[in-house]
């Protein structure tokens, strides 16, 4: 009757049944609508950029694991997130060789050097983008208007710039809503922003779809909803105050919410749990800091957009937040009599 050998494990013998892989896979699902919409807006250009960035991240992860003689960690899906997010932050006509390089840097510098999954102190996708922005500031701020008539028939030649060579600029370059505002004082209609009828990086176009993805993740408890809520609320309130003071000088809070990479950053990038604080209040403070930095950079800084920088700075601050904001351990602060 009892021939079976018994397993001996230590308690608890029940587990909740989530896993890193399930979480990561769901994040990918949540991003897909926004990614698909960007392809709809920018055509094959955006598709190629997204595919290249994802491939390059996955490939880099695989190769690095092999080189360091570890089991390949590609199957945990996190490299796919990094790749997709990197692609979404790039202009849809960004040269593919630069995109590829960005993916390599995101994974190798942003993730692997720091110890791989779970140890990266900065958001790897943003490390990739920050390096690209530092290296190729012109290419990364060359935008094209969406909904070009030929977007599903032709591919922009700048995508195929030879490796290490400058891209040829062709087609009409458009200004993003933020740079239009900062440099020319032109305000884009909020509905256009929310539904993506603007130029910008692939992931800037569909605030609504990104938000929906975020709601899905939050409902399934795969994402800390406090982070986006805190960031968006801070941006809204701060810019609301300035708008109230002088509407002719400062952008409206709705414009601030729906323009640029704010939605993508708040929903998918600041929420990377590895590089964000761990407690509820810590996370809210983290969101408030990021939100404040975004408003400061956008309104007073030299650059039109500050989401990436704000999140990277937030990442750098989060160890301190975790050090300062901890839960009071049960029974402490009361004197043991």
């Amino acid at each position, binding site marked *: 009757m009892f021939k079976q050998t018994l397993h001996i494990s230590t308690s608890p013998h029940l587990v909740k049944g989530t896993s890193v892989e399930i979480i990561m896979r769901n994040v990918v699902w949540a991003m897909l609508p926004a990614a698909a919409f960007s392809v709809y807006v920018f055509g094959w250009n955006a598709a190629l950029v997204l595919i290249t960035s994802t491939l390059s991240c996955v490939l880099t992860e695989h190769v690095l694991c092999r080189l360091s003689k570890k089991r390949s960690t590609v199957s945990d899906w996190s490299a796919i997130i990094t790749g997709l997010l990197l692609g979404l932050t790039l202009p849809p006509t960004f040269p593919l060789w*630069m995109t590829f390089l960005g993916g390599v840097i995101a994974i190798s*510098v942003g993730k692997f050097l720091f110890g791989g999954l779970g140890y990266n102190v900065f958001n790897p996708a943003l490390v990739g983008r920050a*390096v690209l922005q*530092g*290296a*190729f*500031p012109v*290419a990364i701020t060359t935008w094209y208007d969406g909904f070009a008539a030929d977007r599903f028939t032709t591919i922009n030649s700048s995508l195929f*710039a*030879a490796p*290490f*060579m*400058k*891209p040829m600029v062709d087609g009409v370059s458009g200004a993003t809503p933020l740079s239009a505002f900062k440099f020319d004082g032109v305000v884009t209609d909020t509905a256009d922003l929310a539904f993506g009828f603007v130029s910008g990086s692939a992931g800037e176009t569909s605030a609504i779809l990104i938000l929906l993805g975020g709601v899905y993740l939050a409902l399934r408890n795969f994402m800390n909803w406090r982070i986006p809520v805190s960031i968006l609320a801070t941006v809204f309130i701060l810019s609301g105050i300035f708008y109230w003071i002088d509407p002719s000088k400062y952008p409206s809070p709705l414009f601030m919410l729906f323009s640029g990479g704010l939605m993508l950053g708040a929903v998918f990038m600041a929420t990377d749990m590895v590089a964000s604080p761990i407690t509820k209040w810590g996370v809210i403070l983290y969101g408030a800091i990021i939100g404040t930095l975004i408003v400061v950079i956008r309104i007073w800084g030299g650059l039109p957009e500050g989401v990436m920088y704000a999140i990277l700075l937030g990442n750098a601050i989060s160890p301190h937040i975790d050090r300062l904001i901890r839960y009071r351990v049960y029974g402490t602060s009361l004197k043991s009599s």
Partner: protein
Amino acid sequence: MNNEITKATAPNTTDEFIKGLWKENPVFVQVLGMCPVLAVSNTAVNALAMGLATAFVLIMSNSLVSMLRNFIPKEVRIASYILIIATFVTMIDYAIQAISVDLHKNLGAFISLIVVNCLILSRAEAFASKNTLTKSIMDALGMGLGFTLGLVSLGMVREILGSGSIFGIAILPDTFQEWVIMILPAGGFFTLAAWLLVFNLYKQKRNAL
């Protein structure tokens, strides 16, 4: 401490010279005086000028310290070294201004900052104050050249990738896409990290053999 290692492993003057180039390279092994290394290595020319200026100060101060080593009482030695170093730095500062205003502009305040480069003070303290003039000069030559080598190797990488040229001469085609980041501060950090990584990998491999 350095001194003990030096005495044990470098019995003759050529060795004093060689060690600075490789085994005790100030940039890659000792990681000393990093500020100028990072700040002025954005082009090979700047790096070379800075390296030579540092080497000059190093050689001169090492010589003078070595010559005066029996004359300077222990209590005031650091003060005297700083005085000596600051003198030679002021001299090279004026000399560079007299050579080219542009070069001086590019190197900025970093020429003056050679004063506080701990490489120089540490050589004076750890070596020149205890060794003969010839040995001290050899040591300074080696360290100075090693420092220059480190700087220039950084500067070359940064200049080639960042501007497509080397010592100001374009070597890559016009269509080459420059990596602006290489000239930015971040590029300095990254390049130095990469060089150190290469060095560590090499050391690891050699130790494994």
